[in-house]
Protein backbone atom coordinates (compact mmCIF):
# COMPACT_ATOMS: atom_id res chain seq x y z
CA UNK A 1 0.00 0.00 0.00
CA UNK A 2 1.96 2.98 -1.26
CA UNK A 3 -0.95 5.35 -1.96
CA UNK A 4 -0.03 7.56 0.99
CA UNK A 5 3.55 7.89 -0.22
CA UNK A 6 2.40 8.55 -3.80
CA UNK A 7 0.15 11.41 -2.63
CA UNK A 8 2.81 12.82 -0.33
CA UNK A 9 5.02 13.48 -3.39
CA UNK A 10 2.40 15.95 -4.64
CA UNK A 11 2.64 14.50 -8.13
CA UNK A 12 -0.94 13.20 -8.07
CA UNK A 13 -3.59 15.91 -8.22
CA UNK A 14 -6.74 15.55 -6.14
CA UNK A 15 -9.86 17.56 -6.93
CA UNK A 16 -10.79 18.01 -3.25
CA UNK A 17 -9.12 18.40 0.14
CA UNK A 18 -8.34 14.90 1.25
CA UNK A 19 -6.67 13.06 4.11
CA UNK A 20 -4.89 9.82 3.18
CA UNK A 21 -3.49 8.07 6.22
CA UNK A 22 -2.02 10.98 8.14
CA UNK A 23 -1.26 13.08 5.07
CA UNK A 24 -3.47 16.02 4.17
CA UNK A 25 -3.56 17.21 0.57
CA UNK A 26 -5.39 20.50 -0.10
CA UNK A 27 -6.37 19.47 -3.63
CA UNK A 28 -7.47 21.73 -6.49
CA UNK A 29 -10.31 23.21 -4.42
CA UNK A 30 -7.99 24.04 -1.49
CA UNK A 31 -8.98 23.92 2.17
CA UNK A 32 -12.25 25.66 3.03
CA UNK A 33 -12.11 28.73 5.29
CA UNK A 34 -14.04 26.90 8.03
CA UNK A 35 -11.59 23.98 7.99
CA UNK A 36 -8.66 26.36 8.10
CA UNK A 37 -10.01 28.58 10.87
CA UNK A 38 -12.04 26.27 13.10
CA UNK A 39 -10.18 22.98 12.71
CA UNK A 40 -6.64 24.16 12.27
CA UNK A 41 -5.17 21.91 14.95
CA UNK A 42 -7.38 18.87 14.82
CA UNK A 43 -10.18 17.88 12.50
CA UNK A 44 -13.06 15.92 14.05
CA UNK A 45 -13.93 14.42 10.67
CA UNK A 46 -10.56 12.64 10.44
CA UNK A 47 -11.22 10.48 13.47
CA UNK A 48 -14.59 9.16 12.36
CA UNK A 49 -15.01 5.55 11.18
CA UNK A 50 -18.41 5.80 9.51
CA UNK A 51 -18.19 5.26 5.76
CA UNK A 52 -19.96 7.52 3.29
CA UNK A 53 -21.15 11.09 3.81
CA UNK A 54 -21.43 12.70 7.27
CA UNK A 55 -21.83 16.24 8.56
CA UNK A 56 -19.08 17.83 10.64
CA UNK A 57 -19.88 19.99 13.77
CA UNK A 58 -19.41 23.10 11.60
CA UNK A 59 -22.04 22.08 9.06
CA UNK A 60 -19.75 20.86 6.24
CA UNK A 61 -19.91 17.47 4.57
CA UNK A 62 -17.13 14.93 4.67
CA UNK A 63 -16.87 11.58 2.95
CA UNK A 64 -15.05 8.54 4.33
CA UNK A 65 -13.88 5.34 2.62
CA UNK A 66 -11.12 2.79 3.13
CA UNK A 67 -8.70 1.28 0.65
CA UNK A 68 -7.04 -1.69 2.29
CA UNK A 69 -6.11 -0.42 5.72
CA UNK A 70 -5.79 3.20 4.66
CA UNK A 71 -8.62 5.56 5.49
CA UNK A 72 -9.48 8.25 2.98
CA UNK A 73 -11.45 11.33 4.04
CA UNK A 74 -12.56 14.08 1.68
CA UNK A 75 -13.59 17.02 3.86
CA UNK A 76 -14.90 20.61 3.79
CA UNK A 77 -17.41 19.83 1.02
CA UNK A 78 -21.03 20.55 0.17
CA UNK A 79 -22.86 17.25 0.11
CA UNK A 80 -26.54 16.37 0.22
CA UNK A 81 -26.57 16.53 4.02
CA UNK A 82 -25.57 20.22 4.08
CA UNK A 83 -29.08 21.10 2.87
CA UNK A 84 -30.29 24.50 1.73
CA UNK A 85 -30.94 26.22 5.03
CA UNK A 86 -27.43 27.47 5.61
CA UNK A 87 -25.97 30.89 6.21
CA UNK A 88 -25.11 33.10 3.24
CA UNK A 89 -21.51 33.07 4.33
CA UNK A 90 -21.36 29.28 4.29
CA UNK A 91 -23.15 29.20 0.93
CA UNK A 92 -20.44 31.41 -0.52
CA UNK A 93 -17.70 29.36 1.09
CA UNK A 94 -19.06 26.11 -0.34
CA UNK A 95 -19.45 27.46 -3.87
CA UNK A 96 -17.71 25.05 -6.26
CA UNK A 97 -17.35 22.43 -3.51
CA UNK A 98 -20.33 20.23 -4.35
CA UNK A 99 -19.79 16.50 -4.05
CA UNK A 100 -22.15 13.54 -3.92
CA UNK A 101 -21.59 9.93 -2.84
CA UNK A 102 -21.64 8.63 -6.41
CA UNK A 103 -18.78 10.90 -7.52
CA UNK A 104 -16.87 10.24 -4.31
CA UNK A 105 -17.12 6.45 -4.69
CA UNK A 106 -16.18 6.59 -8.33
CA UNK A 107 -13.04 8.56 -7.34
CA UNK A 108 -12.28 6.07 -4.52
CA UNK A 109 -12.65 3.21 -7.01
CA UNK A 110 -10.07 4.79 -9.30
CA UNK A 111 -7.70 5.14 -6.31
CA UNK A 112 -8.34 1.53 -5.43
CA UNK A 113 -7.36 0.51 -8.96
CA UNK A 114 -4.17 2.57 -8.67
CA UNK A 115 -3.45 0.85 -5.35
CA UNK A 116 -3.88 -2.58 -6.96
CA UNK A 117 -1.60 -1.66 -9.84
CA UNK A 118 1.10 -0.56 -7.36
CA UNK A 119 0.64 -3.71 -5.25
CA UNK A 120 0.80 -6.00 -8.28
CA UNK A 121 3.89 -4.24 -9.53
CA UNK A 122 5.59 -4.70 -6.15
CA UNK A 123 4.62 -8.38 -5.99
CA UNK A 124 5.88 -9.02 -9.51
CA UNK A 125 9.20 -7.30 -8.78
CA UNK A 126 9.48 -9.20 -5.48
CA UNK A 127 8.79 -12.44 -7.31
CA UNK A 128 11.51 -11.60 -9.83
CA UNK A 129 13.97 -10.63 -7.11
CA UNK A 130 13.37 -13.83 -5.18
CA UNK A 131 13.63 -16.06 -8.22
CA UNK A 132 17.35 -16.74 -7.67
CA UNK A 133 16.35 -18.47 -4.41
CA UNK A 134 14.81 -21.34 -6.34
CA UNK A 135 17.99 -23.26 -7.10
CA UNK A 136 19.71 -22.74 -3.71
CA UNK A 137 16.61 -24.14 -1.98
CA UNK A 138 16.75 -27.17 -4.24
CA UNK A 139 20.47 -27.63 -3.62
CA UNK A 140 20.01 -27.25 0.14
CA UNK A 141 17.41 -30.01 0.12
CA UNK A 142 19.74 -32.22 -1.90
CA UNK A 143 22.52 -31.48 0.54
CA UNK A 144 20.40 -32.39 3.53
CA UNK A 145 19.18 -35.57 1.90
CA UNK A 146 22.75 -36.64 1.01
CA UNK A 147 24.09 -35.74 4.48
CA UNK A 148 21.37 -37.83 6.16
CA UNK A 149 22.13 -40.76 3.80
CA UNK A 150 25.85 -40.45 4.61
CA UNK A 151 25.05 -40.37 8.32
CA UNK A 152 22.93 -43.48 7.91
CA UNK A 153 25.70 -45.28 6.00
CA UNK A 154 28.33 -44.46 8.62
CA UNK A 155 26.12 -45.34 11.60
CA UNK A 156 25.70 -48.76 13.10
CA UNK A 157 22.57 -50.56 11.96
CA UNK A 158 21.24 -50.67 15.53
CA UNK A 159 20.84 -46.89 15.63
CA UNK A 160 17.84 -45.91 13.52
CA UNK A 161 16.78 -42.31 14.20
CA UNK A 162 18.70 -39.30 12.88
CA UNK A 163 19.08 -37.69 16.33
CA UNK A 164 20.39 -40.94 17.83
CA UNK A 165 22.78 -41.36 14.88
CA UNK A 166 23.97 -37.78 15.41
CA UNK A 167 24.82 -38.57 19.03
CA UNK A 168 27.32 -41.19 17.83
CA UNK A 169 28.59 -39.38 14.72
CA UNK A 170 31.99 -37.74 14.20
CA UNK A 171 32.29 -33.97 14.72
CA UNK A 172 32.55 -33.37 10.95
CA UNK A 173 29.53 -35.52 10.23
CA UNK A 174 27.54 -33.77 12.97
CA UNK A 175 28.44 -30.36 11.54
CA UNK A 176 27.53 -31.44 8.01
CA UNK A 177 24.10 -32.80 8.96
CA UNK A 178 23.38 -29.88 11.28
CA UNK A 179 24.44 -27.23 8.76
CA UNK A 180 22.39 -28.84 5.99
CA UNK A 181 19.37 -29.08 8.29
CA UNK A 182 19.74 -25.49 9.43
CA UNK A 183 20.11 -24.25 5.87
CA UNK A 184 16.77 -25.81 4.96
CA UNK A 185 15.10 -24.49 8.08
CA UNK A 186 16.36 -21.00 7.30
CA UNK A 187 15.02 -21.26 3.75
CA UNK A 188 11.64 -22.25 5.22
CA UNK A 189 11.81 -19.16 7.42
CA UNK A 190 12.61 -17.01 4.39
CA UNK A 191 9.69 -18.50 2.45
CA UNK A 192 7.22 -17.68 5.22
CA UNK A 193 8.77 -14.25 5.75
CA UNK A 194 8.14 -13.27 2.11
CA UNK A 195 4.87 -15.17 1.81
CA UNK A 196 3.13 -15.67 5.18
CA UNK A 197 0.40 -17.69 3.40
CA UNK A 198 3.04 -20.43 3.00
CA UNK A 199 2.51 -21.29 6.68
CA UNK A 200 -0.83 -22.84 5.67
CA UNK A 201 0.33 -24.68 2.55
CA UNK A 202 -0.15 -28.42 2.35
CA UNK A 203 -2.37 -30.64 4.40
CA UNK A 204 -1.63 -31.55 8.02
CA UNK A 205 0.11 -34.89 8.31
CA UNK A 206 0.68 -37.18 11.25
CA UNK A 207 3.98 -36.24 12.91
CA UNK A 208 5.80 -37.02 16.11
CA UNK A 209 6.18 -33.81 18.10
CA UNK A 210 8.75 -35.55 20.24
CA UNK A 211 10.73 -36.42 17.09
CA UNK A 212 10.56 -32.85 15.76
CA UNK A 213 11.80 -31.41 19.08
CA UNK A 214 14.53 -34.03 19.40
CA UNK A 215 15.82 -33.25 15.91
CA UNK A 216 15.75 -29.46 16.36
CA UNK A 217 17.40 -29.57 19.79
CA UNK A 218 20.11 -31.88 18.53
CA UNK A 219 20.77 -29.61 15.52
CA UNK A 220 20.82 -26.38 17.53
CA UNK A 221 22.66 -27.70 20.57
CA UNK A 222 26.23 -26.50 20.55
CA UNK A 223 25.93 -25.14 17.03
CA UNK A 224 26.12 -21.43 17.76
CA UNK A 225 29.04 -20.00 19.64
CA UNK A 226 28.75 -16.72 21.51
CA UNK A 227 31.33 -13.92 21.41
CA UNK A 228 33.33 -15.63 24.18
CA UNK A 229 33.54 -18.86 22.20
CA UNK A 230 31.13 -20.66 24.53
CA UNK A 231 28.72 -23.07 22.88
CA UNK A 232 25.19 -23.08 24.25
CA UNK A 233 23.78 -26.50 24.99
CA UNK A 234 20.15 -27.30 24.39
CA UNK A 235 18.76 -29.89 26.77
CA UNK A 236 15.60 -31.74 25.87
CA UNK A 237 13.42 -33.10 28.66
CA UNK A 238 10.14 -34.97 28.59
CA UNK A 239 8.43 -37.56 26.48
CA UNK A 240 5.36 -37.85 24.33
CA UNK A 241 5.05 -40.58 21.77
CA UNK A 242 1.77 -39.45 20.34
CA UNK A 243 1.49 -38.31 16.76
CA UNK A 244 -0.12 -34.98 15.95
CA UNK A 245 -1.75 -33.73 12.75
CA UNK A 246 0.57 -30.87 11.85
CA UNK A 247 1.49 -28.90 8.77
CA UNK A 248 5.06 -28.98 7.54
CA UNK A 249 5.52 -25.38 8.64
CA UNK A 250 4.88 -26.34 12.29
CA UNK A 251 8.56 -27.01 12.98
CA UNK A 252 9.20 -23.26 12.50
CA UNK A 253 7.56 -22.65 15.92
CA UNK A 254 10.01 -24.71 18.03
CA UNK A 255 12.87 -23.87 15.67
CA UNK A 256 12.36 -20.11 16.07
CA UNK A 257 11.78 -20.27 19.82
CA UNK A 258 14.79 -22.50 20.48
CA UNK A 259 17.16 -20.65 18.13
CA UNK A 260 16.01 -17.36 19.70
CA UNK A 261 16.72 -18.77 23.18
CA UNK A 262 20.15 -20.05 22.05
CA UNK A 263 21.00 -16.68 20.53
CA UNK A 264 20.19 -14.69 23.67
CA UNK A 265 21.19 -17.27 26.28
CA UNK A 266 23.63 -15.52 28.63
CA UNK A 267 24.00 -18.12 31.34
CA UNK A 268 23.50 -21.89 31.63
CA UNK A 269 21.74 -24.09 29.10
CA UNK A 270 18.58 -23.75 27.09
CA UNK A 271 16.02 -26.25 28.36
CA UNK A 272 13.23 -27.56 26.15
CA UNK A 273 10.48 -29.27 28.15
CA UNK A 274 7.76 -31.43 26.70
CA UNK A 275 4.93 -32.33 29.05
CA UNK A 276 1.92 -34.49 28.24
CA UNK A 277 -1.31 -33.24 29.83
CA UNK A 278 -4.82 -34.72 29.76
CA UNK A 279 -5.78 -33.59 26.27
CA UNK A 280 -2.71 -31.75 25.02
CA UNK A 281 1.04 -31.39 25.28
CA UNK A 282 2.84 -28.38 26.59
CA UNK A 283 6.18 -27.23 25.19
CA UNK A 284 8.37 -24.83 27.12
CA UNK A 285 11.65 -23.24 26.06
CA UNK A 286 13.45 -21.85 29.08
CA UNK A 287 16.69 -19.85 29.08
CA UNK A 288 18.46 -17.17 31.05
CA UNK A 289 19.03 -14.01 29.10
CA UNK A 290 18.15 -10.31 28.87
CA UNK A 291 14.79 -9.46 30.44
CA UNK A 292 11.72 -8.88 28.31
CA UNK A 293 9.82 -5.96 29.79
CA UNK A 294 6.11 -6.35 30.55
CA UNK A 295 5.06 -3.95 27.78
CA UNK A 296 7.18 -5.85 25.26
CA UNK A 297 5.65 -9.29 25.77
CA UNK A 298 3.27 -8.91 22.80
CA UNK A 299 5.52 -6.60 20.80
CA UNK A 300 8.36 -9.13 20.48
CA UNK A 301 6.12 -11.18 18.19
CA UNK A 302 5.63 -8.29 15.78
CA UNK A 303 7.71 -7.84 12.65
CA UNK A 304 11.09 -6.15 13.10
CA UNK A 305 10.56 -5.47 16.81
CA UNK A 306 13.57 -6.14 19.03
CA UNK A 307 13.53 -6.17 22.81
CA UNK A 308 15.07 -3.16 24.55
CA UNK A 309 17.64 -5.26 26.40
CA UNK A 310 18.35 -7.78 23.67
CA UNK A 311 19.01 -5.41 20.78
CA UNK A 312 22.13 -4.06 22.42
CA UNK A 313 23.44 -7.61 23.00
CA UNK A 314 23.17 -9.34 19.63
CA UNK A 315 22.69 -8.40 16.00
CA UNK A 316 19.34 -9.38 14.63
CA UNK A 317 16.41 -8.51 12.39
CA UNK A 318 13.51 -9.11 14.77
CA UNK A 319 11.84 -11.71 12.56
CA UNK A 320 12.28 -15.08 14.31
CA UNK A 321 9.48 -14.70 16.86
CA UNK A 322 7.31 -12.92 14.29
CA UNK A 323 7.57 -15.98 12.02
CA UNK A 324 6.87 -18.33 14.93
CA UNK A 325 3.69 -16.34 15.58
CA UNK A 326 2.60 -16.55 11.92
CA UNK A 327 2.98 -20.33 11.94
CA UNK A 328 1.33 -20.62 15.36
CA UNK A 329 -1.65 -18.62 14.06
CA UNK A 330 -1.85 -20.96 11.06
CA UNK A 331 -2.20 -23.85 13.55
CA UNK A 332 -4.45 -21.96 16.02
CA UNK A 333 -1.74 -22.26 18.63
CA UNK A 334 -1.02 -19.54 21.18
CA UNK A 335 2.56 -18.75 22.15
CA UNK A 336 3.00 -17.07 25.51
CA UNK A 337 6.13 -15.53 26.98
CA UNK A 338 7.11 -14.70 30.54
CA UNK A 339 10.25 -13.02 31.84
CA UNK A 340 11.26 -13.14 35.50
CA UNK A 341 14.33 -11.21 36.70
CA UNK A 342 16.91 -13.26 38.57
CA UNK A 343 17.21 -11.04 41.64
CA UNK A 344 20.00 -8.61 41.00
CA UNK A 345 22.10 -10.92 38.80
CA UNK A 346 23.74 -9.14 35.89
CA UNK A 347 25.55 -10.07 32.71
CA UNK A 348 27.79 -7.06 32.24
CA UNK A 349 25.36 -4.18 32.20
CA UNK A 350 22.41 -6.38 31.35
CA UNK A 351 20.14 -7.74 34.08
CA UNK A 352 19.55 -11.47 33.89
CA UNK A 353 16.09 -12.97 33.65
CA UNK A 354 14.57 -16.40 33.21
CA UNK A 355 12.67 -16.21 29.93
CA UNK A 356 10.06 -18.85 29.19
CA UNK A 357 8.30 -19.30 25.88
CA UNK A 358 5.42 -21.71 26.02
CA UNK A 359 2.85 -23.21 23.68
CA UNK A 360 0.36 -26.05 23.80
CA UNK A 361 -0.65 -28.52 21.13
CA UNK A 362 -4.05 -30.20 21.60
CA UNK A 363 -4.18 -33.92 20.81
CA UNK A 364 -7.05 -33.22 18.42
CA UNK A 365 -5.26 -30.48 16.48
CA UNK A 366 -6.29 -30.33 12.78
CA UNK A 367 -8.50 -33.43 13.07
Amino acid sequence: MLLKEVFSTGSVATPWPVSIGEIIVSGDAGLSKTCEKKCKLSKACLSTHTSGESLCPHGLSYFVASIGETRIVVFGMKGEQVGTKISRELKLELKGRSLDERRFHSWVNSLSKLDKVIDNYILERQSELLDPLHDPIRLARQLESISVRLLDQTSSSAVRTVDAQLDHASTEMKSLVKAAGLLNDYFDLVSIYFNPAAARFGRPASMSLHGILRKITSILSGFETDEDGVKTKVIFRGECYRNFNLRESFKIIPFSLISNAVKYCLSGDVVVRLREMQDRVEVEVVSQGPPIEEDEIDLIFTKKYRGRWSKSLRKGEGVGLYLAKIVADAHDIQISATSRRLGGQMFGATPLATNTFRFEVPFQINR
Partner: protein
Amino acid sequence: MEYISGVVSWFENASWLANFFGICVPVAGVVLAFRKWVSSKKTTGMSLPEVIERISKSPNKIDAKALGKVAFVDDEISDFPIAELKKAGYQISTYKQVSLSDVAVLATYDVIFLDIKGIVKDDPEEGGLKLLSSLRRLNPNQKICAVSNKQYDVLATKFFEQADDVAKKPMTAQKCSDLIDQFFVEKFSVDRIEQVMVAESNALDKAKRNEYLGSLSVLVENQDDPRKAIKLDSAVFPKLFEATVDLVRIYRHVA
Protein backbone atom coordinates in the same frame (compact mmCIF):
# COMPACT_ATOMS: atom_id res chain seq x y z
CA MET B 1 -68.17 -73.05 -24.03
CA GLU B 2 -71.11 -70.83 -23.27
CA TYR B 3 -68.75 -67.99 -22.36
CA ILE B 4 -66.84 -68.31 -25.64
CA SER B 5 -69.97 -68.41 -27.74
CA GLY B 6 -71.22 -65.37 -25.76
CA VAL B 7 -68.04 -63.43 -26.56
CA VAL B 8 -68.20 -64.50 -30.24
CA SER B 9 -71.78 -63.38 -30.55
CA TRP B 10 -70.87 -60.08 -28.81
CA PHE B 11 -68.21 -59.39 -31.46
CA GLU B 12 -70.58 -60.45 -34.26
CA ASN B 13 -73.18 -58.02 -33.03
CA ALA B 14 -70.75 -55.10 -32.65
CA SER B 15 -69.72 -52.80 -35.55
CA TRP B 16 -66.27 -53.28 -37.23
CA LEU B 17 -64.97 -50.13 -35.46
CA ALA B 18 -65.96 -51.43 -32.02
CA ASN B 19 -64.33 -54.75 -32.91
CA PHE B 20 -61.14 -52.96 -33.97
CA PHE B 21 -60.81 -51.00 -30.72
CA GLY B 22 -62.02 -53.89 -28.59
CA ILE B 23 -59.21 -56.11 -29.89
CA CYS B 24 -56.35 -53.70 -30.67
CA VAL B 25 -56.39 -51.58 -27.51
CA PRO B 26 -55.92 -54.45 -25.03
CA VAL B 27 -53.33 -56.16 -27.27
CA ALA B 28 -51.33 -52.94 -27.67
CA GLY B 29 -51.52 -52.32 -23.93
CA VAL B 30 -50.16 -55.75 -23.13
CA VAL B 31 -47.33 -55.36 -25.68
CA LEU B 32 -46.31 -51.95 -24.33
CA ALA B 33 -46.37 -53.13 -20.71
CA PHE B 34 -44.25 -56.13 -21.65
CA ARG B 35 -41.67 -53.96 -23.45
CA LYS B 36 -41.48 -51.58 -20.51
CA TRP B 37 -40.98 -54.50 -18.15
CA VAL B 38 -38.24 -55.95 -20.35
CA SER B 39 -36.44 -52.59 -20.69
CA SER B 40 -36.68 -51.91 -16.96
CA LYS B 41 -35.10 -55.27 -16.30
CA LYS B 42 -32.35 -54.37 -18.73
CA THR B 43 -31.42 -50.94 -17.21
CA THR B 44 -31.61 -51.91 -13.60
CA GLY B 45 -29.49 -54.99 -14.06
CA MET B 46 -27.51 -54.03 -10.98
CA SER B 47 -28.33 -51.09 -8.76
CA LEU B 48 -25.75 -48.83 -7.12
CA PRO B 49 -26.10 -50.50 -3.69
CA GLU B 50 -25.69 -53.89 -5.38
CA VAL B 51 -22.51 -52.75 -7.11
CA ILE B 52 -21.14 -51.42 -3.81
CA GLU B 53 -22.09 -54.65 -2.03
CA ARG B 54 -20.42 -56.78 -4.70
CA ILE B 55 -17.21 -54.72 -4.29
CA SER B 56 -17.22 -54.92 -0.51
CA LYS B 57 -17.96 -58.64 -0.51
CA SER B 58 -15.44 -59.47 -3.17
CA PRO B 59 -12.60 -61.69 -1.91
CA ASN B 60 -10.21 -59.58 -4.04
CA LYS B 61 -9.03 -56.43 -2.31
CA ILE B 62 -8.20 -53.22 -4.11
CA ASP B 63 -4.57 -53.23 -5.23
CA ALA B 64 -4.15 -49.45 -5.48
CA LYS B 65 -0.74 -49.70 -7.15
CA ALA B 66 -2.22 -51.78 -9.97
CA LEU B 67 -5.38 -49.69 -10.23
CA GLY B 68 -4.09 -46.15 -9.77
CA LYS B 69 -2.32 -44.05 -12.38
CA VAL B 70 0.19 -41.39 -11.39
CA ALA B 71 1.62 -38.58 -13.53
CA PHE B 72 4.61 -36.35 -12.86
CA VAL B 73 4.54 -33.06 -14.78
CA ASP B 74 7.82 -31.26 -14.24
CA ASP B 75 10.59 -29.89 -16.43
CA GLU B 76 13.10 -31.46 -14.01
CA ILE B 77 11.91 -35.05 -13.82
CA SER B 78 15.23 -36.03 -12.21
CA ASP B 79 13.92 -34.40 -9.01
CA PHE B 80 11.61 -37.41 -8.59
CA PRO B 81 12.60 -41.01 -7.85
CA ILE B 82 10.78 -42.34 -10.93
CA ALA B 83 12.82 -45.54 -11.30
CA GLU B 84 12.35 -46.44 -7.63
CA LEU B 85 8.63 -45.81 -7.79
CA LYS B 86 8.24 -47.92 -10.93
CA LYS B 87 10.27 -50.66 -9.30
CA ALA B 88 7.93 -50.50 -6.31
CA GLY B 89 5.03 -51.25 -8.65
CA TYR B 90 3.44 -47.85 -9.20
CA GLN B 91 2.07 -47.02 -12.66
CA ILE B 92 3.96 -43.86 -13.47
CA SER B 93 3.88 -41.52 -16.48
CA THR B 94 6.12 -38.51 -16.82
CA TYR B 95 5.69 -35.28 -18.79
CA LYS B 96 8.45 -32.72 -19.11
CA GLN B 97 6.26 -30.26 -20.89
CA VAL B 98 2.61 -30.24 -21.84
CA SER B 99 0.18 -28.02 -23.67
CA LEU B 100 -2.96 -26.58 -22.10
CA SER B 101 -4.87 -28.64 -24.66
CA ASP B 102 -3.51 -31.84 -23.05
CA VAL B 103 -5.56 -31.17 -19.93
CA ALA B 104 -8.23 -33.77 -20.80
CA VAL B 105 -5.62 -36.54 -20.88
CA LEU B 106 -3.95 -35.34 -17.67
CA ALA B 107 -7.33 -35.20 -15.92
CA THR B 108 -7.66 -38.98 -16.29
CA TYR B 109 -4.79 -39.66 -13.85
CA ASP B 110 -5.67 -40.45 -10.26
CA VAL B 111 -2.70 -38.60 -8.80
CA ILE B 112 -0.68 -35.85 -10.38
CA PHE B 113 2.51 -34.16 -9.21
CA LEU B 114 2.60 -30.72 -10.77
CA ASP B 115 5.23 -28.01 -10.97
CA ILE B 116 4.23 -24.39 -11.52
CA LYS B 117 6.86 -23.07 -13.89
CA GLY B 118 8.25 -24.20 -17.22
CA ILE B 119 5.86 -27.10 -17.77
CA VAL B 120 3.32 -25.57 -20.15
CA LYS B 121 4.58 -24.69 -23.61
CA ASP B 122 1.86 -22.10 -24.15
CA ASP B 123 2.53 -20.33 -20.84
CA PRO B 124 5.92 -21.11 -19.25
CA GLU B 125 5.48 -18.60 -16.39
CA GLU B 126 2.01 -19.35 -15.01
CA GLY B 127 1.10 -22.49 -16.94
CA GLY B 128 1.14 -24.73 -13.86
CA LEU B 129 -1.47 -22.60 -12.13
CA LYS B 130 -3.71 -22.51 -15.21
CA LEU B 131 -3.30 -26.25 -15.69
CA LEU B 132 -4.14 -26.94 -12.05
CA SER B 133 -7.32 -24.84 -12.25
CA SER B 134 -8.40 -26.65 -15.44
CA LEU B 135 -7.69 -30.05 -13.90
CA ARG B 136 -9.73 -29.14 -10.83
CA ARG B 137 -12.66 -28.15 -13.04
CA LEU B 138 -12.47 -31.26 -15.24
CA ASN B 139 -11.81 -33.79 -12.50
CA PRO B 140 -12.51 -32.52 -8.98
CA ASN B 141 -11.73 -35.98 -7.57
CA GLN B 142 -8.17 -36.05 -8.89
CA LYS B 143 -5.47 -35.73 -6.23
CA ILE B 144 -2.98 -33.00 -7.03
CA CYS B 145 0.31 -32.39 -5.28
CA ALA B 146 1.87 -28.99 -6.00
CA VAL B 147 5.60 -29.60 -6.19
CA SER B 148 7.68 -26.47 -6.20
CA ASN B 149 10.25 -24.67 -4.12
CA LYS B 150 8.60 -21.34 -4.92
CA GLN B 151 6.60 -21.22 -1.71
CA TYR B 152 8.17 -17.83 -1.00
CA ASP B 153 6.48 -16.38 -4.06
CA VAL B 154 3.24 -14.55 -3.24
CA LEU B 155 2.18 -14.85 -6.88
CA ALA B 156 2.28 -18.65 -6.57
CA THR B 157 0.03 -18.73 -3.48
CA LYS B 158 -3.11 -19.70 -5.44
CA PHE B 159 -1.24 -22.62 -7.00
CA PHE B 160 -0.31 -24.07 -3.61
CA GLU B 161 -3.69 -23.33 -2.04
CA GLN B 162 -5.65 -25.14 -4.75
CA ALA B 163 -3.59 -28.31 -4.47
CA ASP B 164 -4.45 -31.23 -2.18
CA ASP B 165 -0.94 -31.21 -0.83
CA VAL B 166 2.36 -29.43 -1.27
CA ALA B 167 5.90 -30.78 -1.51
CA LYS B 168 9.37 -29.46 -2.12
CA LYS B 169 11.91 -30.79 -4.58
CA PRO B 170 13.84 -32.97 -4.89
CA MET B 171 11.51 -35.58 -3.43
CA THR B 172 12.64 -38.79 -1.82
CA ALA B 173 11.10 -42.15 -2.76
CA GLN B 174 9.73 -42.46 0.77
CA LYS B 175 7.99 -39.09 0.68
CA CYS B 176 6.61 -39.78 -2.81
CA SER B 177 5.25 -43.22 -2.00
CA ASP B 178 3.76 -42.01 1.31
CA LEU B 179 1.91 -39.26 -0.54
CA ILE B 180 0.74 -41.51 -3.37
CA ASP B 181 -0.47 -44.21 -0.97
CA GLN B 182 -2.41 -41.66 1.07
CA PHE B 183 -3.97 -40.21 -2.08
CA PHE B 184 -4.95 -43.69 -3.31
CA VAL B 185 -6.60 -44.52 0.03
CA GLU B 186 -8.71 -41.38 -0.24
CA LYS B 187 -9.48 -41.62 -3.95
CA PHE B 188 -10.40 -45.32 -3.97
CA SER B 189 -12.48 -45.19 -0.80
CA VAL B 190 -15.71 -46.91 -1.88
CA ASP B 191 -17.60 -45.23 0.99
CA ARG B 192 -16.56 -41.81 -0.24
CA ILE B 193 -17.41 -42.66 -3.84
CA GLU B 194 -20.84 -43.93 -2.79
CA GLN B 195 -21.48 -40.77 -0.78
CA VAL B 196 -20.57 -38.56 -3.73
CA MET B 197 -22.69 -40.62 -6.12
CA VAL B 198 -25.77 -40.64 -3.89
CA ALA B 199 -25.52 -36.94 -3.06
CA GLU B 200 -24.77 -35.78 -6.59
CA SER B 201 -27.22 -38.04 -8.41
CA ASN B 202 -30.04 -36.55 -6.31
CA ALA B 203 -29.52 -33.36 -8.28
CA LEU B 204 -30.48 -35.16 -11.51
CA ASP B 205 -34.08 -35.25 -12.69
CA LYS B 206 -35.78 -38.65 -12.71
CA ALA B 207 -35.29 -39.39 -16.38
CA LYS B 208 -31.61 -38.41 -16.34
CA ARG B 209 -30.98 -40.34 -13.15
CA ASN B 210 -32.56 -43.47 -14.62
CA GLU B 211 -30.53 -43.10 -17.78
CA TYR B 212 -27.34 -42.52 -15.79
CA LEU B 213 -27.94 -45.44 -13.40
CA GLY B 214 -28.86 -47.58 -16.38
CA SER B 215 -25.52 -46.85 -18.03
CA LEU B 216 -23.74 -47.71 -14.76
CA SER B 217 -25.45 -51.08 -14.52
CA VAL B 218 -24.51 -51.84 -18.12
CA LEU B 219 -20.89 -50.77 -17.57
CA VAL B 220 -20.33 -53.15 -14.69
CA GLU B 221 -21.36 -56.00 -16.99
CA ASN B 222 -19.12 -55.12 -19.95
CA GLN B 223 -15.65 -53.71 -20.57
CA ASP B 224 -16.60 -50.50 -22.42
CA ASP B 225 -14.68 -47.32 -21.70
CA PRO B 226 -16.65 -45.73 -18.82
CA ARG B 227 -15.66 -42.23 -19.90
CA LYS B 228 -17.45 -42.80 -23.20
CA ALA B 229 -20.33 -44.92 -21.99
CA ILE B 230 -21.60 -43.12 -18.87
CA LYS B 231 -24.82 -41.33 -19.77
CA LEU B 232 -24.01 -38.09 -17.98
CA ASP B 233 -22.71 -34.68 -18.99
CA SER B 234 -19.22 -34.63 -17.45
CA ALA B 235 -18.95 -30.85 -17.85
CA VAL B 236 -22.07 -30.26 -15.75
CA PHE B 237 -21.57 -33.07 -13.22
CA PRO B 238 -17.77 -33.62 -13.16
CA LYS B 239 -17.69 -34.90 -9.59
CA LEU B 240 -20.41 -37.49 -10.16
CA PHE B 241 -18.96 -38.45 -13.51
CA GLU B 242 -15.48 -39.07 -12.12
CA ALA B 243 -16.80 -40.89 -9.05
CA THR B 244 -18.73 -43.20 -11.38
CA VAL B 245 -15.63 -43.81 -13.50
CA ASP B 246 -13.73 -44.74 -10.34
CA LEU B 247 -16.49 -47.04 -9.13
CA VAL B 248 -16.61 -48.89 -12.45
CA ARG B 249 -12.80 -49.24 -12.44
CA ILE B 250 -12.84 -50.57 -8.88
CA TYR B 251 -15.69 -52.97 -9.67
CA ARG B 252 -13.88 -54.37 -12.70
CA HIS B 253 -10.66 -54.54 -10.69
CA VAL B 254 -12.05 -56.61 -7.82
CA ALA B 255 -14.92 -58.48 -9.49
